[in-house]
């Protein structure tokens, strides 16, 4: 999830506020070759009637609208409803439909459950396949060569880098998304959340919990109201 306080001014920094090109000052990041290429391709496709600027803008907006909140909602429901959890693990597509979530035809989804004996972590070594419909766009680190190369061979080392330390009695299970299945981790519900509402539970399910590189944590003073 993006925390605006941590916005990094990287050459890939997003310019999400409306900003006509003429107003960019000389200190702005220079336009790279790939950015030039994107504009060239897009403008040609629009001129030839293959795409419209409207549908491109709508597709951009759709991606912007996706966030891990949807995945967190699914996890929270699974935590409070044991029968739903079973259905989610058995057939994730059908269970998501119950919540009004249609994952479409691009890929199948599969839910893998963390238990006291097994900790799951997701990677795509061959490219960067990711359950975008439930989690939004993947973080840069998920797409990095470092994560893609090391998670399969040194998952405990990678998890330690993320601050997740697992006992020797916990087996680590890595899932490499090599085909048309997208995986989401169902983390264990922390014991200290007894009696919480679904909204309160969803608030502690972060994106990284559903990738497997974090565990849900209970803040020392739980929110009394839903986060949103």
């Amino acid at each position, binding site marked *: 999830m993006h925390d605006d306080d941590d916005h990094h001014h990287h050459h890939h920094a997003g310019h999400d506020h409306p900003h006509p090109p003429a107003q960019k000052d000389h200190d702005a990041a220079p336009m790279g070759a790939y950015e030039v290429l994107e504009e060239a391709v897009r403008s040609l496709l629009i001129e030839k009637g293959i795409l419209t600027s409207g549908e491109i803008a709508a597709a951009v907006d759709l991606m912007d609208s996706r966030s891990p909140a949807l995945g967190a909602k699914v996890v929270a429901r699974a935590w409070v409803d044991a029968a739903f959890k079973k259905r989610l693990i*058995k*057939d994730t*597509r*059908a269970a998501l439909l119950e919540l009004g979530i249609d994952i479409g*035809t691009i890929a*199948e989804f*599969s839910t893998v459950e963390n238990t006291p004996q097994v900790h799951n972590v997701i990677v795509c*070594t*061959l490219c960067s396949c990711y359950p975008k419909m439930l989690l939004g766009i993947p973080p840069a680190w998920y797409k990095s060569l470092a994560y893609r190369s090391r998670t*399969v*061979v*040194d*998952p*405990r*080392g990678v998890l330690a880098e993320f601050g997740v330390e697992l006992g*020797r009695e916990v*087996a*680590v*299970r*890595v*899932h*490499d*998304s*090599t*085909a*048309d*299945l997208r995986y989401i981790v169902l983390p264990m519900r922390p014991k200290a959340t007894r009696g919480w509402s679904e909204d309160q539970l969803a608030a502690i399910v972060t994106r990284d919990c559903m990738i497997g590189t974090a565990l849900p944590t209970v803040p020392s003073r739980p929110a009394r109201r839903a986060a949103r």
Partner: protein
Amino acid sequence: MVSAAGSFSRPPRFKPGDRVSVPARAALGHCRTPWYVRGKPGVVAAVHGSFRDPERLAYHRPGLPAQVLYKVRFRQLDVWPSYLAGQADHIEVDIYEPWLEPQP
């Protein structure tokens, strides 16, 4: 678990629990079987259903006949010669039927 989208175009060759291995052969072009499991032994964890073949889809072909896709579980100790952590650690990879052989 069978994919809701995949009915089988032909009966799956393997079922959950079957011991399989990935042949140690080179890929010709686009391939979704990672290098690190080539020649390694595993167990079928699940049968996902039939999917169009990415090796053909990548070259503007329809990807038919659809191939059965399996979730195959490998012990990390079998995959990496010097895996030191966690004897019970596993890695699961989704592999298409042409890339699996029965273990003798």
